[in-house]
């Protein structure tokens, strides 16, 4: 497949829609006083529903069906499958390991969940 020129390859909305905003900001940001936080039940339920994906028998069956129905473009010879598959599997495993090893050294230093801003607890019953 030929990659397009310009920015067609990137989905770049000019402003975030509701779904984006919900995922971007809900449960993030400075916790000033949990006691006083107004519940946003309606919005939270939407988010929870969107996030829950249960790996189950149904999921497996769905993938099996998707795989069965896959319209195949011939990418590997249909003959001598064992030999071809062994080679492919070897390359794939090596490739994966390489990517993971390569990244762990450089990137891990940058990963941090944000600087904790320690706040003194405000007075009041909770």
């Amino acid at each position: 497949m030929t990659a397009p020129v310009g920015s067609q390859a990137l989905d770049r909305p000019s402003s975030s829609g509701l779904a984006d905003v919900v995922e971007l900001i809900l449960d993030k940001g400075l916790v000033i006083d949990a006691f006083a936080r107004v519940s946003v039940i309606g919005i939270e339920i939407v988010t929870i529903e969107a996030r829950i994906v249960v790996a189950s028998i149904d999921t497996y069956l769905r993938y099996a069906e998707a795989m069965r129905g896959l319209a195949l473009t011939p990418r590997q010879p249909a003959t001598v499958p064992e030999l071809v598959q062994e080679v492919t599997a070897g390359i794939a495993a090596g490739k994966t390991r390489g990517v993971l090893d390569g990244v762990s050294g450089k990137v891990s230093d940058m990963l941090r969940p944000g600087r904790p801003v320690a706040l003194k607890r405000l007075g009041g019953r909770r």
Partner: protein
Amino acid sequence: MSIAPAAALHCVHGIVDASAPIQAVLATVADVERRPRLFAHGAVAALVTGPLPQAPTPSRADLMTHARLLDALAACTAVLPARFGTVLPGADRVRQLLVDNEENLLAGLDAVRGSAQYTVRARHVQQEVLREILDEQPEVHRLRETIVGEGGAARYPEQIRLGELVHAALAAKVAEDTRAMLEALCPHAQAAVPRPVSGVDASFGGAYLVRHARREAFEAAAEELGRRWYGRARVRLLGPLAPYDFVTGKEDGR
């Protein structure tokens, strides 16, 4: 639970420098009722709306205003976003917050000063990724041949086994591509938070804290990633945003 008296409720949207030039941004909130004002003490200020007539029931419009305001502020000044829906019972509490925490809040502002957040999300094109898995995994290939060969009347255990393998392979691809994204974008960022990978959720990505001077380079790198994955994954770039993922608040003694 006692939030009272109702007339004194103040909604806190975020924290900025007391001297931050933000009036022009605040003025973009057309709805005067929702337009926050600065509540300053010393070097820091809270963005507040209120006093509110009653305990608010946040609406969609409130959420959008909160986010758009913080994002617009982040483009021109340091801002610590407060968690949406934060309400303090009284102006005194807002003042107390600033008085007690001035130093910590300033340190928090310093940590994000000169930077904004980008959130990058990618979603695999299922057909393409399934083809990759078929090419890479002999067992998947074999099971599929068996099932197709039986004309759809495949045995249940084999269908389950195939689905299980595909499910695991998809999760591995999400983990691998999350790493690949980090590797492509981290050179242009100060810090990164990968989106937690959970289950078989098809989207993946992360949040990146990017210096204003590096924004163009970061956006170009994201675009390059989109080109590299074109056809097998859609890459979505949101930002510049307020640093939602780079501000974690915790109270003393908790």
